């Protein structure tokens, strides 16, 4: 290994990288854009615009609507005068939920009968609908219990405080903030994207230019060339990680619970997979465009399978097996483990080991292909 030659290549790559303002812009702005987009778009399913048609117009019916509002999941933004109003608002998407309280609501309550309240939600987005429905049901049950107890007390019954007191605690993310979950995921996603894209051009661009032949005729060895090309890519990778972390902490207020040093070490482990993959694609593609098309076959499924959006545990079995074949799945688990839970190698060693194994296989394949194309 001749370090002078490695540095010569690295210096050339740096010069070219910083000379191309578009690449610099894309590499620096892309992560920030993604963090902001995902960070804000992932906000909770709270304050759903709701239309209420209160036919009862009593203190009791208002109490019910207040309870829904207080849950923070509904905000009653429209008042309907007819069922057609309700349907129209949900149809055109202005409201995501409709509440209809019948005219005899209060009367039935006083007669100790069960009035029916209709809660209709727009279930196009199943997750949001699910949440809204559960909250509405819980509000209803709660009101029923309170009324029952009040009634029994009025009748002179001495009601002891019995029942299960569920004290729910949201560990690691006490505020139940979505961005705490999503932003570390974006870090993993951006890493995979930037690293594969940058390393994808290593061989194929030089081949397109005709400069690869000049490099082959020079005394440089394939290992020196590959290392010289990887050093700038990794540097940019670390700059990206740092930028995203700073954004996470100071913009979104997502604290890093675990060790940053450990995080940076696992990022290095992940380089073997991403840089290896990009380099591999670079050695099989004839043109850069072709390389981009090839890499899409991998990048999109790996994002969907990794658990970035859909939790792996909730996937069908076959999909889970596929998910475990995606290196990003492990890196995602590691990054979330470190940033959100604050755990270290004592808990994350299985994931780190798997990531290392994937990295070794992918990287070795890439190096062998690289050498064959060069020597």
């Amino acid at each position: 290994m001749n370090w002078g030659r490695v540095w010569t290549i690295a210096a050339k790559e740096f010069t070219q990288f910083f000379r191309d303002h578009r690449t610099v812009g894309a590499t620096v702005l892309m992560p920030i854009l993604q963090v902001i987009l995902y960070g804000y778009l992932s906000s909770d399913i709270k304050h759903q615009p709701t239309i209420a048609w209160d036919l009862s117009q009593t203190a009791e019916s208002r109490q019910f609507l207040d309870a829904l509002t207080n849950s923070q999941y509904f905000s009653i933004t429209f008042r309907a005068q007819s069922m057609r109003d309700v349907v129209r608002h949900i149809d055109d998407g202005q409201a995501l939920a409709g509440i209809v309280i019948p005219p005899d609501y209060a009367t039935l309550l006083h007669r100790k009968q069960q009035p029916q309240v209709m809660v209709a939600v727009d279930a196009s987005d199943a997750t949001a609908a699910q949440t809204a429905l559960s909250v509405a049901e819980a509000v209803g049950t709660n009101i029923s219990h309170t009324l029952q107890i009040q009634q029994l007390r009025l009748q002179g019954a001495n009601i002891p405080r019995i029942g299960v007191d569920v004290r729910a605690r949201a560990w690691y993310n006490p505020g139940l903030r979505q961005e705490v979950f999503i932003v570390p995921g974006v870090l993993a996603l951006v890493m995979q994207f930037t690293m594969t894209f940058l390393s994808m051009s290593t061989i194929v661009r030089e081949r397109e230019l005709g400069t690869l032949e000049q490099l082959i005729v020079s005394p440089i060895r394939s290992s020196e060339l590959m290392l010289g090309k990887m050093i700038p890519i990794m540097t940019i990778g670390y700059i990206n990680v740092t930028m995203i972390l700073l954004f996470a902490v100071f913009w979104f207020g997502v604290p890093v619970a675990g060790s940053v040093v450990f995080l940076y070490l696992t990022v290095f482990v992940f380089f073997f997979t991403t840089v290896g993959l990009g380099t591999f694609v670079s050695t099989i593609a004839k043109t850069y465009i072709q390389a981009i098309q090839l890499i899409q076959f991998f990048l999109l499924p790996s994002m969907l399978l990794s658990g970035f959006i859909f939790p792996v545990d909730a996937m069908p079995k076959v999909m889970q097996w596929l998910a475990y074949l995606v290196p990003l799945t492990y890196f995602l688990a590691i990054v979330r483990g470190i940033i959100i839970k604050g755990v270290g190698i004592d808990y994350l060693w299985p994931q780190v080991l798997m990531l290392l194994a994937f990295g070794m296989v992918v990287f070795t394949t890439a190096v062998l292909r690289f050498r064959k194309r060069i020597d």
Partner: protein
Amino acid sequence: MNGSAAPTIRADALTKRFGDFVAVSDVSFEIRAGEIWGFLGPNGAGKSTTIRMLCGVLSPTSGSAEVLGFDVARDPEEVKLRIGYMAQGSSLWNDLSVQEHLRFYAGLFGLAGTKREDAISHWLKRLDLYGQRARLAGTLSGGYRKRLALACTLLHEPQMVFLDEPTSGVDPLSRREFWDIIVALAEAGTTVLVTTHYLDEAEHCNDLALIYDGKIVASGTPESLKRDARNGITAEILSPDTVRVLDAIETQPFVASAGLYGSALHVCIRERDGLDRLSQFLQEHAIPVDSIAQVTPSLEDVFASLVGKR
């Protein structure tokens, strides 16, 4: 290397196949140290493929090659340290400046410090690139791109230089300048293998090889090639209607090849008595001719007759 005894290059039955296509077939030759060795042939004849095998870019399907005493297949690194290669196509980074290119190649060949700066400024001046040194290669004209490529090739003072069509796309004045440099290199002891399309340039070479369809069809000094008896007689015909003459004689069995040469017509004739038969033929067919004379063939004639025979 130890003097004149060992050749700088020894190619032994080099063959390269790409699938069913035979690009280079059983090519053997030797190049002596300090020689300018010209490699001629039409596009696709196998020149570049042969050079790329000699530089270690392509591995031969069969055969072997020794460059500067090293077997290319066994010691490619030793060979690569000592040679310079200028590819036919563009081989520059459009987003790097002239100076950055030279610094890069200096780094690859381990030149550093004052040695590096001296070499760079020497070639910048020698190839008239000094005024362009800060310009990006992508903004240079074709001629300057060739100059830069040549500078990158010669920067590390290689003992053996491969120049694949160094003057294609270069204006006539610069061509002469390039050849001045090539001749000076050879005089200083560097061995040069050069390919060219321009047959006038081939006259600068000490030795020539003509390659056609992957095979070497003739070799020797420019003079010996022209003298070669196999080429028969070359006749120069001046006529008010050269095109008519050409049409009439082209298909005759005693004519090896015929082609326009300036305003005259050059005809290669196989038989010894061909000249008489030619004048007889022209008289019989009442084709007006001003003069017929035997001339020393140009390389173009040699080339045309060799290729025409096939």
